[in-house]
């Protein structure tokens, strides 16, 4: 999909999100609504609809906003059930309704498609049992100890799906998929805040960890969804200039991710920073280069109902490697190359036994062919 055809709609969206007073019109409303859905920013657009001339467009946005809220309340109900079921398992909800509450004082303001839960790796088996007891089915299959070990080593979450209420849950034991970045669960939990929601209390990331986490997460996806940038923008309102400068120093290994996020907030949303922060962004060539990549992805996100950001397989592969190189240097790149040969989905059709488990890495392409033939 050539998104350059929809540049007017994207520019209108960016103008609304950066709260510009002068708004252009004459856009294709269907395209505009699709862009809002793809970027998951209905809640951020809705407060600005008075700037739009079209009554029909305003009504569509209002209806979509209400629908989103009801959907988010459904996720919240599922999260509450998990919270009760996880009694005794410490966990931290990532993003989702708790982030919405933290940023917007409303648990149903953000758009989420799933529930993300972070646990200690030692609790994986117990958490899996508890989710299964609630009716969730694990979408990642493993049948042997070595297969499970490989998944835990090379991935950062398992996916679960509830066939009745169609809720998707990601059970994380690592916050982010970069090898060079490791937020210790114990330390994260010690510095977490307790937030009351309904009659329950949830541990959530404190604002500094949240800023670093959201920045790393956004960078992992090259910020192709504006929602992630808007989340960071909303979080920045909770920082004074000095607090932000101190926050940048707290986790040195994720500092450049935060600088990318801040650079994008400055470029796309006209957010102003102190001279110190601006210098940090400007003086890091890798950060500046990655910001440009992210800006390109933001402009490529248009789906007609499904994501078509990447046009070719080669570009898709290069993009994936580029992200992991930015995230972890050569070590991150090498680890990603190894991880790409770890394909649990194929193991249910064929896998070498644990005694020679390394053959599953070596012959991953063969296993893929066998799985395609069998399925």
């Amino acid at each position, binding site marked *: 999909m050539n998104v350059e055809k929809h540049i007017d709609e994207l520019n209108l969206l960016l103008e609304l999100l950066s709260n510009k007073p002068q708004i252009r019109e004459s856009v294709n409303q269907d395209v505009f609504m699709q862009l809002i859905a793809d970027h998951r920013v209905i809640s951020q657009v809705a407060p600005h609809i008075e700037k739009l001339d079209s009554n029909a467009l305003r009504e569509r946005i*209002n209806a979509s*906003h*209400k629908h989103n*809220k*009801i959907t*988010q*309340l*459904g996720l*919240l*109900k599922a999260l*509450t*059930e998990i919270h009760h079921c996880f009694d005794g398992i410490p966990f931290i909800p990532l993003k989702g309704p708790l982030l919405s509450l933290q940023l917007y004082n*409303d*648990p*149903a*303001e953000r758009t989420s498609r799933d529930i993300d839960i972070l646990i200690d790796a030692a609790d994986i088996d117990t958490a899996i049992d508890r989710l299964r007891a609630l009716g969730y089915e694990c979408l990642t299959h493993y049948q042997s100890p070595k297969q499970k070990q490989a998944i835990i080593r090379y991935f950062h979450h398992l996916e679960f799906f509830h066939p009745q209420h169609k809720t998707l849950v990601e059970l994380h034991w690592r916050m982010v998929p970069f090898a060079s970045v490791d937020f210790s669960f114990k330390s994260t939990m010690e510095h977490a805040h307790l937030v009351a*929601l*309904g*009659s329950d209390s949830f541990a959530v990331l404190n604002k500094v960890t949240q800023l670093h986490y959201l920045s790393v997460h956004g960078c992992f996806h090259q910020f192709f969804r504006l929602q992630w940038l808007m989340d960071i923008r909303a979080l920045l309102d909770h920082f004074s200039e000095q607090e932000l400068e101190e926050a940048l120093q707290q986790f040195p290994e994720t500092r450049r991710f935060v600088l990318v996020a801040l650079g994008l907030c400055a470029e796309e949303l006209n957010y102003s920073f102190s001279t110190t922060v601006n210098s940090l962004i400007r003086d890091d060539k890798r950060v500046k280069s990655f910001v440009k990549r992210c800006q390109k992805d933001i402009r490529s996100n248009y789906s007609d109902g499904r994501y078509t950001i990447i046009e070719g397989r080669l570009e898709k592969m290069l993009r994936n490697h580029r992200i992991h190189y930015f995230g972890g240097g050569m070590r991150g790149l090498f680890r990603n190359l190894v991880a790409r040969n770890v394909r649990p989905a194929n193991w249910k059709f064929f896998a070498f036994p644990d005694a020679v488990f390394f053959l599953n890495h070596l012959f991953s392409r063969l296993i893929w062919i066998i799985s395609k033939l069998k399925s």
Partner: protein
Amino acid sequence: MTKYIRKSDNIASKIQDEIVMVNVTLGNYFSMNAVASSIWELLEKPQSIDALCSALMEEYAIDLETCQREVHDFIAKLTELNVIETVD
């Protein structure tokens, strides 16, 4: 005088002057218009029907008798739906 308060297992979200809400225990979803939303917000703290009417009459053009009747009916509905409870 009986006072009422909303139960804590309801989670609400505002959208303009309406509220959408889920009761996480019962799994029920509710939507409230502007007036109902005003009452719901007041019920964050214990309120009698008279106190609710006093607050509503400051905001809306309504006579006392109509207000008491409609608030009474609304409180009865919320009680039936098990989203509020009485307090001493």
